[in-house]
């Protein structure tokens, strides 16, 4: 049983009879830890490249989905079906002038995009992309994810404050209010899942959904926790700040919200963080409620590959739903947003938690 990506790399190296000689070389130098560090860096590099490629693909996919909904083609010229459009966008953004407003707080203004971007990548560390495709199976994985994604409102507030612009500050204030109101139902809906599994580890949560009722219906938590799933999905879309709840950047009211003053690569980092967050949140929804990487086992194909494919299919389905919702519904008002968050979602999440806890204690659901 290979527990995580580190052991997977060691296994693959052993399979090609490379690991032993490498280990001997490093042991002869008395620096075995260097090899460990190199392997960890390789994993992180692979994750980083994978996430960035996914993010680029998602920007393309978003434009394509909007275009399909609006009876258009979307990007078509750059590359086949416009697939290279994100590359061109990146080149354009690198070529743009990096403007810092004269009255901005330069240090915080420069720091804020990084504080947004780094947690968006850190969220992926305890996320299982497939059987044994996980950087680190933290025993507090879910808590870690919720805690890490709670950093982003701080960075958004820093960005809005440092820009010294009324629209930026208003956008940042709204974003923070929204993030705080929706993290609570998000966490409560996730805790109901934790009650069912008895573990915060993402791998344990996925393994708990591995079976099937009557051999047909998969034991996904969406069937046990339908209310929890809906609450988690709405709360995570609100936390991402996508369209039905995009107060942080409502174009028609605030110019672009907290990144009004940003340009060039700093803007690109906010943009990348947004789509990395979309991918991460969809992955978390899949892991918690849609069975993660579980699926029918195929013969002759390594389970790592099939599970990765199942995970990506489910994740892209959730991402498509988020994009589809974005193209369909208009923005709600800020008071409606806070009403929905505090008056409806929090009580419903508490109710869901209460019922789940009752049923788990009574031994009906395990």
């Amino acid at each position, binding site marked *: 049983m290979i527990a995580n990506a580190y052991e997977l790399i060691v296994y693959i190296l052993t399979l090609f009879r490379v690991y032993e000689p490498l280990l001997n070389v490093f042991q002869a130098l008395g620096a075995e830890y260097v090899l460990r560090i190199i392997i960890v860096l390789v994993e992180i590099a692979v994750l980083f490249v994978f996430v960035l490629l996914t993010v680029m693909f998602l920007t393309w996919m978003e434009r394509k989905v909007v275009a399909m909904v*609006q009876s258009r083609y979307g990007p078509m010229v750059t590359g086949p079906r416009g697939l290279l459009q994100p590359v061109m966008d990146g080149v354009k953004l690198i070529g743009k002038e990096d403007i810092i407003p004269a009255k901005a707080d330069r240090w915080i203004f420069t720091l804020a995009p990084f504080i947004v971007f780094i947690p968006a990548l850190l969220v992926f560390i305890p996320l299982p992309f497939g059987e044994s495709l996980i950087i680190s199976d933290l025993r507090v994985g879910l808590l870690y994810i919720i805690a890490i994604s709670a950093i982003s409102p701080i960075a958004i507030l820093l960005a809005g404050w440092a820009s010294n612009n009324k629209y930026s500050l208003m956008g940042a204030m709204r974003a923070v209010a929204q993030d705080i109101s929706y993290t609570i139902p998000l966490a409560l809906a996730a805790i109901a899942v934790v009650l069912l599994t008895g573990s915060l580890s993402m791998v344990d949560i996925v393994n708990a959904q591995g079976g099937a009722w009557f051999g047909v219906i998969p034991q996904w938590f969406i069937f046990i926790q339908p209310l929890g799933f809906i609450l988690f999905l709405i709360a995570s879309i609100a936390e991402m700040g996508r369209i039905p709840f995009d107060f942080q950047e409502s174009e028609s009211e605030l110019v672009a919200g907290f990144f009004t003053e940003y340009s060039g690569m700093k803007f690109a980092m906010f943009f990348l963080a947004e789509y990395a967050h979309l991918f991460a949140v969809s992955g978390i929804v899949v892991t918690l409620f849609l069975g993660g990487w579980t699926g029918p086992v195929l013969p002759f194909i390594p389970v790592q590959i099939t599970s990765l494919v199942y995970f990506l299919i489910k994740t892209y389905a959730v991402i498509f739903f988020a994009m589809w919702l974005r193209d*369909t519904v208009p923005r709600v008002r800020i008071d409606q947003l806070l009403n929905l968050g505090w008056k409806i979602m929090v009580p419903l999440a508490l109710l869901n938690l209460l019922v789940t806890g009752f049923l788990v204690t009574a031994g009906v659901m395990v």
Partner: protein
Amino acid sequence: MAWISKNWAMSGIIAGLIVTLKHVLHIGNRPTVTVQYPYERMKVSPRFRGLHAVDENACIGCGICEINCPNSTIQIVKYNTKWYPQVNIGMCLFCGLCVDVCPMNAMKMTGNYELADYTRESLVYGPDRLLFNKEVKQ
């Protein structure tokens, strides 16, 4: 709370989602309507008023089009021993009066609408670029 108790099933959102999904999947009469312009062109209608064309044999060089042109776009110039109109597209408003008044029906307007150019001089279309030979059917 009132608005959510009425819409607890979110039927409005679901109806909207179904409509947009129909557009994505092209269900019903919902085709992709964009024309990829430089690679494919829309069909212009037969009465489209684009660049002028003058029948080389029919034109008698009478100058009625020149008189009737509201922007004084047309000048009659000599070309190959006969007189023909010369049109300055930069001033033309594509009203089609020259076509209407031509006594010999020699003037017509084609569907050519890609008339952007780099200099003002090249916008003046002389008889060498306007004339065409009608295939005479006896």
